């Protein structure tokens, strides 16, 4: 197994807080580097998806990989999302490591049968004698009038299904390490990127490394309020933290990095200190990731809370296109500030 040699690391550099002299690259370049190294390390790995070899290369994430590794290992696909997910599963069952890219998680709705009825169950259903090492990667859209069908953050929906690992990277460093972990993992992994994080740059070591699943990270330490921020909401939380500090409120920001498994311990440790919790998600509030984290905290860490939990997410409506409505629809740093202030009253 070529993967056992890769260094596993938990240390994180927060974007914008890089040490001088370290290698800084963009988010899509970090993703691309992970894929390139996976293709080099393991001949079983291949990349598929509509547009992976197009001139844009999935926002740069797969740019020109087909030129380096050939069209058998990096190939464009017909739309047929459900069929192609099954194809990836079948290839995984028989010894390959497919990485299936989608521009948007909205398209995963066309693949629900193969993800939910097949990939997630195949190992358990056959007594654990087989396994499905596939990665399904998609990028959540936001803004520019993307509207209802090109902007959904659907990670919460998949959390309901046993047998899937759910990964939500935030920094270029994490994107690379989590992608390499996902490919090395023997099970179905869904990675939900966020389009707005692709603008980020950050420290990324050149050599391959893996970040373990189920280990969150404290993005900012603080003593007054714990903010569990998912994906792009880490960015909004960091903005809010600066403003709140001016008002004398010192928040702690936790990035769970993977939602399944979830680092409940890290959240509990923080709550012991702050006693107050805000969960900020890129998706809807109802029945989603924020709801699940709130439930887990209520169940296991209730004794540390001294105020009700606050959730920030998008309104329970489809995403509107007009930027005026769009702005009002999404949770943002102002909502986080307001929630923190209320908790500190």
């Amino acid at each position: 197994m070529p993967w056992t040699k890769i260094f596993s690391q938990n240390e994180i550099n927060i974007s914008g807080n890089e040490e001088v002299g370290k290698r800084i690259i963009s988010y899509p370049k970090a993703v691309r580097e992970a894929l390139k190294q996976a293709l080099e390390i393991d001949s079983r790995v291949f990349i598929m998806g509509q547009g992976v070899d197009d001139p844009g290369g999935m926002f740069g994430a797969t740019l020109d990989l087909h030129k380096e590794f050939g069209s058998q290992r990096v190939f464009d696909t017909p739309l047929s999302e459900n069929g192609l997910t099954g194809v990836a599963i079948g290839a995984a069952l028989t010894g390959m490591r497919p990485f299936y890219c989608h521009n948007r998680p909205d398209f995963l709705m066309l693949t629900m049968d193969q993800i939910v009825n097949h990939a997630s169950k195949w190992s358990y259903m056959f007594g654990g004698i087989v396994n499905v090492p596939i990665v399904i990667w998609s990028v959540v859209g936001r803004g520019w009038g993307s509207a209802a069908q090109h902007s959904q953050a659907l990670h919460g929906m998949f959390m309901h299904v046993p047998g899937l690992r759910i990964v939500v990277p935030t920094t270029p460093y994490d994107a690379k390490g989590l992608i390499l972990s996902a490919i090395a993992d023997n099970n179905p992994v869904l990675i939900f990127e966020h389009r707005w994080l692709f603008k980020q740059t950050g420290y990324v070591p050149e050599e391959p490394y893996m970040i373990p699943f189920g280990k969150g990270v404290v993005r900012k330490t603080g003593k007054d309020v714990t903010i569990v921020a998912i994906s792009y909401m880490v960015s909004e939380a960091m903005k809010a933290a600066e403003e709140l500090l001016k008002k004398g409120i010192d928040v702690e920001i936790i990035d769970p990095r993977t939602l399944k498994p979830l680092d409940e311990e890290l959240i509990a440790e923080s709550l012991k200190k702050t006693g107050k919790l805000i969960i900020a998600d890129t998706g809807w509030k109802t029945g989603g990731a924020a709801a699940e984290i709130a439930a887990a905290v209520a169940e296991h860490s209730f004794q540390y809370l001294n105020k009700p939990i606050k959730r920030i997410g998008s309104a329970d409506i489809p995403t509107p296109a007009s930027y005026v409505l769009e702005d009002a629809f999404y949770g943002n740093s102002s909502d986080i500030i307001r929630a923190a202030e209320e908790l500190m009253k």
Partner: protein
Amino acid sequence: MLAKGTMIDLYKKMMEIRLVEQRIADHYNEDEMRTPVHLYIGQEAIAAGVCANLQKEDYVFSNHRNHGHYIAKGGDLNAMIAELYNRATGCSKGRGGSMHLIDLSVGFHGSSSIVAGGVPIATGAALASVMKGENRVSAVFFGDAASEEGVVYESICFAALKKLPIVYICENNQYSVCSPLKNRQADNQMYKKFEGLPIKTYCLDGNNVIDVYTAFNKIIEDVREKQQPVFVECVTYRMMDHHGTKTGVEVGYRTQEEWDEWKGKDPIGIFENILYEQKLLDEKEKAEIVGSINQRIDQAFEFAKKSPLPDISQLCTGLFR
């Protein structure tokens, strides 16, 4: 004309499937096999005729009506019956039940009980074979209702695009649960739906094992050598109810006349007559074959019933690896 050995092997395999299914039916109402069984009686010629042409390392993917495919590919009978009896020694350790049989040692890669669900997965296995430079064929069995699912079209189009060594076997048994074909499709010929694609399509009498065997002998050789997908419709009839041990006539979704007409085309009955006519089999030899199969079935049922049930401490294992 097929060699005598081949004819007898086909007969034995069909008979084995039939006798296993009948034995399951005999015991099913004891409620000890707590799993929905979808019996393959009436369709034996297809599994036997196809799998006799596959190598051990070739892949087979199946569906909820999978007993016949599992047996024809050489799946372990003890492990199958134990799975039906919900035992820890079952091929899926009691997790899958009747609809989720598997035996990797003979290339039987599992069965999905979502109609058409195994079709793209088999296609992916064929893709992996090509990527690894193996000379393997994938075969996937599905019913007429699966041909109504978009994912079959998606899979075959992709296989045509990538020139994958896979044979799509549509067992047109005329019914989806209680819904007859005429309620579901404008035409009753499945293969016609795929004629527009750049693949070869065939339609066979699925109750004639000589036809099935002979056709698949050539088809599988073609698929292996030319690395191209093929679609084959095998016309047959589901003699039993969708699930369970009745025929469906008693509840009225099909008539006794219709059932009797197909009973007259029973694949084993037809084949047996040919074997008798050609003096390849006599009553005594038949009794020996049946006796020997029944002995194996006795052993499998005994093994299953004696086997332990799964340990509750194992409930949550095997979700991830």
